[in-house]
């Protein structure tokens, strides 16, 4: 009897992503799904949910197991704000609805994972900050923030999590490398465990800068 591992992806689709960046994001994200699908362990437990955020927030892929996942095209408007706060708010509702809590009768899910990808900063900062408080109460197993491109600001992501990855560009190569790294962090639990204590993230690939 196996537990599920839920992974939530919050992807920035604000106006600034228009053009090459959104292509690169589509490419990278589909590559991630395909990488995960070549890992039998991930196939056995991983469930994925995708939320996109610009001025609107959509759960474009409701929680689904990796095998049933159908590829989607992530689209973005030509311009508009970045409602990161609203996206986190929706995430809280989704997690509350999706997550099977353990009981004495039934095995619950593993602690969920969250990946937030943005190329800018929240346009709805007050909402963003109240949502962070709610997120922290939800007890995620891992939260990774990714700030990509020249205009991305890491400081806001750092309010959400200590694990912030900074990407200088949003081109196809950089995003592919990033998603490869995401894939290996998700797969970490099925690898050999060291004699030390806790599960750690794999070292990021060379071209990324982790902000501490």
């Amino acid at each position: 009897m196996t537990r599920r591992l839920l992974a939530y992806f919050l992807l920035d689709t604000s106006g600034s992503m228009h053009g090459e960046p959104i292509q690169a994001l589509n490419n990278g994200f589909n590559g991630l799904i395909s990488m995960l699908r070549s890992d039998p362990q991930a196939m056995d437990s991983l469930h994925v949910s995708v939320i996109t955020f610009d001025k609107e927030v959509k759960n474009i892929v409701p929680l689904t197991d990796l095998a049933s996942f159908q590829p989607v095209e992530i689209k973005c408007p030509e311009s508009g704000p970045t409602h990161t706060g609203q996206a986190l708010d929706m995430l809280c509702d989704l997690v509350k609805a999706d997550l099977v809590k353990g009981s004495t009768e039934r095995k619950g899910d593993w602690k969920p994972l969250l990946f937030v990808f943005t190329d800018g900063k929240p346009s709805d900062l007050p909402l963003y900050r109240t949502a962070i408080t709610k997120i922290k109460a939800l007890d995620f197993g891992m939260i990774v923030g990714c700030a990509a491109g020249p205009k991305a600001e890491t400081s806001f992501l750092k309010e959400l999590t200590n694990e912030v990855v900074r990407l200088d560009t949003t081109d196809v190569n950089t995003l592919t490398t990033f998603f490869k790294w995401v894939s290996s962090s998700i797969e970490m639990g099925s690898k050999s465990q060291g004699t030390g204590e806790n599960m750690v993230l794999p070292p990021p690939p060379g071209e990324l800068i982790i902000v501490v």
Partner: protein
Amino acid sequence: MKTVTVPSIIDPSRSYKYIDNGSPKQGGVKDVYFSPDKKYVVAFFRTPLDYNQKDRIRRIVTLYLDNIKKGNAADYFLQDIYRWPYDAVERDGKTGVIVPIYDSRFFFRKGYGANDNIKGGEKVGKWFTAPSFRNKQYPLFLDSTELGDWLSYFQIAISICRGVKKMHQMGLAHSDLSYNNVLVDPVTRSANIIDLDGLVVPGLFPPEVIGTADFIAPEVLRTKHLKLSDTGRILPNQRTDLHALAVLIYMYLLRRHPLRGGKIWDLDAEKDELMAMGEKALFIEHSSDKTNRVKTDQLRKWDVIWGNPEKIPYTITGPYLSELFRRAFIDGLHNPMLRPIANEWETALIKTVDLIQPCSNPSCEEKWYVFDNTAKPACPFCGTPHKGPLPVADLYYKFKDDLWKPEGHRLMVYHNQHLFKWHVSRKIIRNESLGAEDKKPVGYFAYHQHKWVLVNQSLDGMKDLVTQQEIPRNAMVELTSGSKILLSDKEGGRLLYITITNQ
């Protein structure tokens, strides 16, 4: 893209070439580069090794490799069982090992039925131990040409047992045996143990890993919170390998985990996991303690067949393996000294292969099943009953003069089943050291003109002891209930006692 040459650190007169295209294949701790002729790989540890680690690698590629080369069936172990590193190199302060390339049969030819996503990918064991991938309702089930049949997994398990047996004989412990470190091919019925550079020499080099989830022994998890220097801390060793081996065999044959049942030990998933695999570990099919039974209503829809021990209990593996599963998961789960050793598993698997019957349903996915000692045998996988009379041959050995004693070894007869030298004589042991001559069949069983017969191909001294008829080469004898057939009159020669069931 450039070709790099690196000298051996064992013998500087040897050197190796690899192609550096800037993006090596990345394993857990190593970066892997291919040689231009694709005969070997150079696998560099990403972080520099310390003195002990280097010394260990050095011993693995010299001392232990030589040990295998000088031992029995060296080619068999080096080609069919292990991908054993055979030299070490160094470049820019990083240590690399030279490992023979994986055989092409260990890469998916087709992979998923629905797409090419994993075509060309490595056939790590997990693909074949999870029930979903073989369920046709699952969106990404594995193509049926990849799965083999139930007999495939016996040969795979036998190969893994032999690999572990040999390591243990050399005084080594694998320390991280799991489905990630064993490549399998159900089609050609083969298995290769890989990633052998982490081997542990008990007392000399401490293990660097505690293992992989699902395979870590309970005592290792139970003491995981203690400091490495604490005398109570238990790290991987040969006995924990034997836990991992038992779990592997169970999972290959039954496609579920022996300890993952319905019991919740803690509401926190991680604590629960630690207890369920560690101090509270309990066999889901324990004969008396039913605490950890699988809750079948909570199984995922694609796990309902293999995931349900009531439908497919471990006892379908027959008496010899069932006994060992009980020792591994009941008596020895928390008492490592009681766990069956690799050689016992190998023997039990081999004896069980002699109990196997083909399923008469041509569309049965497993195709083979173990005779269940009942008068009305049926395939446990598809439910098809056996049709027609079924001869059972029990092996006896000469105790003294006219006194014959049972070997505790039974051979189930089916049409075109072969008889081998290891059935005929106690002096021939069925193992990896057998020469080609000893692997040739010496006779066969057939259902011929509504009678079961045994045809003698190359045995001298075969005789029907009931009729006192000699059975020369190229002659046959009819099998009836009560038949006593002497297979060889030489020392160690055995006798077959025939019972016909399902009449």
